[in-house]
């Protein structure tokens, strides 16, 4: 069945270093939607990025990701981590015709000075 695999567990980075959170997926559908949601402490999860276009870079709030259907990947990147980027990040998969929605297990990112 469909699934999402992302960098699991805890990632700790020093401020200013690049961020790379991996996300790969499996689906039988040819037109998946991939999402990154961010969940800050004491807030509700919210959408960070989404894409359904192969090989097109999507950017928002300094983060970017590119959907690569050839490798079934949608990695989240940022050139320079900030303290305020500390949060839980979820990669998610859906399809227009698919009657379900899958989140990965989440990656907890902590940025330290």
């Amino acid at each position, binding site marked *: 069945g469909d699934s999402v695999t992302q960098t699991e567990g805890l990632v700790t980075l020093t401020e200013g270093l690049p961020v790379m959170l991996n996300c790969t997926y499996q689906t039988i559908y040819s037109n998946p939607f991939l999402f990154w949601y961010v969940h800050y402490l004491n807030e*509700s999860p*919210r*959408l960070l990025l*989404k894409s359904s276009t192969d090989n097109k870079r999507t950017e928002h709030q300094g983060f970017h990701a590119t959907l690569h259907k050839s490798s079934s990947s949608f990695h989240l990147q940022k050139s320079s981590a900030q303290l305020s980027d500390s949060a839980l990040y979820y990669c998610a998969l859906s399809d227009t015709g698919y009657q379900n929605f899958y989140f990965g*297990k989440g990656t907890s990112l902590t940025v330290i000075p």
Partner: protein
Amino acid sequence: GGIITQTPKFLIGQEGQKLTLKCQQNFNHDTMYWYRQDSGKGLRLIYYSITENDLQKGDLSEGYDASREKKSSFSLTVTSAQKNEMAVFLCASSIDLGGWEQYFGPGTRLTVL
């Protein structure tokens, strides 16, 4: 804009008890979701509903019932609370299934004594 409210914010129950969580949205969205968030397991879909009076099971539906009597509200019932269970239940809504952004509520934190 709109908002999703969840009640109660904290829910403490006893083993075997039936517990109900409520969710309201004023986005006028057709689709609503219930997720369970556990540390290290990410967000897991319990139930979703694509319109009033519709119910669809997610991967984690066993042990839960749901109800969508109005477009704006979606309730989740834990049919028999499990001892020492702790989790956060998140409600979300979206315009439709597939590639649409999901908007999340603040969550209900469940503790079973």
